[in-house]
């Protein structure tokens, strides 16, 4: 701090501090505290706000447990509140998306970092970046076209003879959502892993090869452990983006798929009950934070590693 004052003088230092304070206080901390505070208030007509009915309660949070639905899984039938069910499935399918992204990205990341000719690497990266520049809504829309009942995917599969009747892709639960999420976010997995593997000394791999290690053992014992920070940051990114995505589930979702963000959106936009929407948004934030913290603790990575 002394250093800043000496270099840039009182005026500039104050200006910089104020800018940072504006960002962190007005745009991050206070909004989140307001969200938290509002989530305990009931939804009232404007005239009654601040009146005797406007008291704090957990009612908004309790709404999560309303409305039991009957579901069966592996032959067991059980009752579960519909929003809890939605939330559980959102977390589950976000994890599925993360795992699929990892499986798809890891071989390519390794290939790019260790095998491909360094001269053609910039071109390759540029090619990979092109879809990233096209906006998310259009990428989801592209898959909406592809997966349509009379769309190109069914036409292709019918033409090749793999299937006999067209498949309703977008009406198979969460299939469309996961397909869209993977396509949208796979690159957020690829680049962190690529960065991590790139810093691995190729001599280590060659030494292992010379000593007779089979290829899978080289990956299991050398490349994978080394790329752990990259895998962790990619996974956290993909997971948080998937769980927080509203576009992809809204465009590619079926009648039987509901994403937790869609529930929040309905409280906010359809029911106009901002207080309950706040409570749900806070739950999403809280549980995602807990989930990520636990995952980082399990894999022993720090938040600062993720930002790389």
């Amino acid at each position, binding site marked *: 701090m002394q250093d800043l004052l000496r270099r840039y003088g009182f005026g500039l230092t104050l200006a910089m501090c104020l800018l940072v304070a504006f960002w962190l206080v007005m745009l991050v901390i206070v909004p989140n505290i307001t969200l938290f505070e509002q989530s305990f208030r009931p939804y009232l007509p404007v005239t009654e706000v601040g009146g005797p009915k406007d008291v704090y309660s957990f009612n908004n949070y309790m709404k999560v447990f309303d409305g039991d639905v009957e579901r069966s899984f592996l032959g067991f039938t059980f009752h579960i509140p519909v929003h809890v069910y939605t939330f559980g499935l959102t977390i589950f399918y976000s994890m599925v998306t993360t795992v699929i992204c990892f499986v798809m990205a890891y071989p390519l990341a390794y290939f790019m970092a260790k095998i491909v000719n360094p001269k053609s690497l910039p071109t390759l990266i540029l090619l990979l970046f092109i879809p990233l520049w096209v906006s998310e809504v259009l990428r989801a829309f*592209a898959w909406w076209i592809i997966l349509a009942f009379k*769309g190109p995917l069914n036409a292709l599969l019918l033409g090749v003879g793999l299937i006999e009747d067209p498949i309703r892709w977008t009406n198979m639960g969460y299939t469309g959502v996961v397909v869209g999420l993977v396509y949208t976010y796979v690159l957020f997995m690829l680049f962190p892993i690529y960065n991590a593997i790139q810093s691995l000394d190729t001599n280590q791999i060659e030494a292992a090869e010379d000593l007779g290690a089979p290829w899978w053992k080289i990956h299991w014992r050398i490349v994978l452990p080394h790329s752990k920070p990259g895998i962790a940051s990619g996974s956290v990114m993909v997971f948080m983006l998937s769980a927080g995505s509203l576009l992809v589930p809204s465009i590619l979702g079926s009648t039987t798929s509901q994403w937790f963000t869609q529930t929040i959106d309905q409280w906010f936009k359809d029911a106009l009950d901002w207080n309950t929407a706040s409570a749900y948004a806070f739950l999403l934030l809280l549980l995602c934070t807990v989930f990520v913290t636990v995952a980082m603790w399990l894999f022993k990575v720090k938040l600062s590693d993720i930002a790389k």
Partner: protein
Amino acid sequence: MHNLRLNLARIYMVLFIIYLLAPLVVMSGAAFNDSKLPSIVPWKGFTTMWFSEMIADQRMMVAFANTLWVAAAVALISVIVGTASAILINSVSGKVRTALYGMMISTILIPGVVIGISTMILWTKMGNALGTEFFLFNPGLHLSVLGQVSYIAAMVMLLVLARLQSFDAGLEEAALDLGASHTQVMRRILLPHLYPAIGAGAAVAFFQSIENFNVTQFTRGGADTLTVYVFSKVRSGITPTINALAFLLILVTLVLAVIYELNRRRRARIEAAREAEARRAEAAEL
């Protein structure tokens, strides 16, 4: 055996690129199909009518202009805030640094839905409490700008902070010793060193803002941005005008990518020529 794996890896890479690019091709192709539904099968003949319809679509043009305004505002504010934060965080250490840094980084991970709702609630509540009708406190795209800045500033901060690592603080000392004012030190020494990172940050902020849906969706009030408009079109009856738009956007992206690539290759060639020259000179000296 080794060769087989290598070939498999090459095939996989090609398949991956096809996987990434094919949807874009399908989407672009549908822009030229003479069919009311956006699809490439069945092909009903070539047409450019969706492009003329797109240009006639007033709402889309307004949304497009809005998007550019919002993105420019977000880029400007994020660059200023992000650069200030990077300089500040670079000069503190210990627990304060960890806490500040952690808080800044965590904004990237907050779901957009949460940012959108919290920004909306804070500013409208504040307007109610103050009892004013001042535009800042009503829903609208200016709130989208504030919401987007709250996490995009962190991305700019990271880029600038990385660049600051290679800055030689001795230069500033020298300038101060030679009698430069504080403003001069900032404007003539520190900022010029940071310009590449600031430029990259501005570009990232601009594109992130164009992409943004979640924050905008909750704060926009009645105004449209392109993303929101496309979304509403996709949900209600769509016409292939969206495909025409997508095709044009992809085309712009491709042109920019090709220019970038040609530029890079030209530089690589010059670099290689210089190296060869240096080697020849070295050999001649021996």
